[in-house]
């Protein structure tokens, strides 16, 4: 196989990236994987454990321990948050594309607020809105009780259903989802839309038959991005989550900082890595090929 100048350029340009990833990502991951078996890569002791042992794994899959359910909770809440943010972001982007309200260009920078808000602050802001004396909690509970749906005020933050986490996550992810959709939607040729309309399509039909099919891979890709980001983020579940159940990364944080249980932390880390890698691989594998064709 001939090695062209092109290939050399490719390799040289990609080298810094790979070097960086090796040191800052691959080696730590290796450390985590080995650490889950009680083996320390750098010769630093892990407390009383001398590996290799399977204790970490036995502990994790033990149904009487919290880890398995915590993983399930993490995935399930992240999925719900993703569905809401992606749908809302997409619909809002479509609204702007179709209706093109003139006022938008003047205030579009407002959308960047959640991007520049540190997650810690964003999470805290939602706590103040949702704790039992928060404005939103008061309003929502009044409405629910008024409609007869609940008998007493329900907890909206630090609750076992992850409601608080959902509010916090959606506020931030909605913007990312919107931003990713807005560009490609603008790229869709106006002729297609005009043609559809001239054939008598209503707005909804235009959305369903023109916009969505042309952006379906973007939708899947964005969903993947948002889902994985939500699963990975720690600040929001740390501040808005309840005693139980907790996100798995919060459990890792507690294991490392409160109980100094490194082997459990590394084992949980491995499960997280596997879950995220599998999800990520499937979704991106599915979309990468399509996007390549789509943009051309």
């Amino acid at each position, binding site marked *: 196989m001939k090695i062209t100048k092109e290939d050399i350029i490719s390799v040289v340009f990609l080298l810094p*990236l790979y070097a960086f990833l090796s040191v800052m990502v691959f080696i730590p991951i290796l450390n985590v994987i080995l650490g889950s078996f009680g083996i320390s890569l750098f010769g630093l002791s892990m407390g009383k454990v001398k590996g290799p042992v399977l204790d970490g794994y036995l502990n994790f899959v033990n149904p009487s321990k919290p880890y398995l359910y915590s993983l399930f909770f993490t995935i399930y809440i992240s999925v719900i948050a993703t569905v809401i943010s992606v749908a809302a972001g997409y619909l809002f982007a479509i609204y702007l594309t179709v209706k093109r*309200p003139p006022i938008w260009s003047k205030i579009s*920078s407002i959308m960047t*607020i959640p991007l520049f808000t540190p997650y810690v602050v964003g999470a805290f802001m939602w706590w103040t809105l949702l704790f039992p004396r928060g404005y939103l909690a008061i309003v929502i509970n009044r409405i629910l009780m008024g409609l007869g749906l609940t008998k007493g005020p329900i907890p909206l933050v630090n609750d076992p259903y992850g409601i608080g986490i959902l509010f916090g996550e959606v506020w931030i992810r909605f913007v990312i989802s919107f931003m990713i959709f807005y560009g490609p939607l603008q790229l869709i040729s106006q002729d297609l839309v005009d043609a559809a309309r001239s054939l008598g399509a209503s707005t909804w039909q235009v959305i369903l038959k023109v916009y969505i099919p042309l952006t379906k891979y973007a939708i899947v890709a964005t969903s993947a991005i948002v889902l994985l980001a939500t699963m990975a983020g720690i600040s929001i579940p740390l501040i808005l989550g309840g005693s139980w159940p907790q996100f798995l990364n919060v459990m890792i944080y507690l294991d490392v900082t409160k109980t100094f249980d490194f082997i459990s932390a590394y084992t949980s880390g491995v499960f997280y890595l596997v879950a995220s890698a599998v999800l990520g691989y499937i979704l991106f594998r599915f979309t990468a090929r399509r996007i390549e064709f789509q*943009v051309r």
Partner: protein
Amino acid sequence: MTVMAVADRRQRLWDLLVIGFVVFYMVFPIFVLLEYAFAEVWYAYQLFPTKLGFKWFSWVLRHYDTRMAIIYSYTLAPLAMLATLALCIPAGYVLGTRRTKLSLLTENLVNMNMALPVIVIGTGLLPLYFKLGLLNNYWAIIPAHMIGAIPYTLRSITAAFMQVPRDLEEVARVLGATKIQVIRKVYLPLTWRGILAGGIFAFSWSLNEFILTLLLGFPTIKTLPIAIYEYVGGYYLTPQPAAALSLLILIPSIFIAIFLEKYVKVSLGMGGG
């Protein structure tokens, strides 16, 4: 009134409703932040603060730690952004213009990186940094900030390069342009928005970054999110100074965003002009 005018009015109303709702949703939490930042007396059973003032701002700026946190945050962010761009521009060029197996592999690797929870990488990075003596080291924090930024930035830059018609480079070469000229005249004008958007992602990520800095830099290197977290997360919750500090991040950030929208015309999409 004509039918058009009525339809128009209805449309304006809908616009107002939808956009109004979104704006309210974005801004209302900030309003509450403002309340906390300026509330000198606000008993929890009261709906609004009863005494407003600047006490929390002077409180926050009085502390050396906090002043340093502001400096650290606002110097690490541009440095991390530049370092990320330095890595991602050449890589994005390759990924965006040559769709080889290597490109796809790199993309997959980087995208999987995005899926990894940062705390897991942090727990693995901690022993490495310790071994290399890099804990509490300012410069060593920069790579930590880049880890999470790279996937987003690379994605943005790759998309930007993908927009450039492939033949353009060949044509320019055929017409005798040097490498530098190709970059300046062909690529730069077409990709700078994507690059800038990628840079902004990196800047924003670094500003936000908290858990790795907490694990690797604390207590010597404290950035704004950590300073805020000290007031807000865990045991010790004093929301008022946290709110004051948050405004110190938000307001400059909002100005940057407005500036970029207005003068640099960076659209909030990742492609399109």
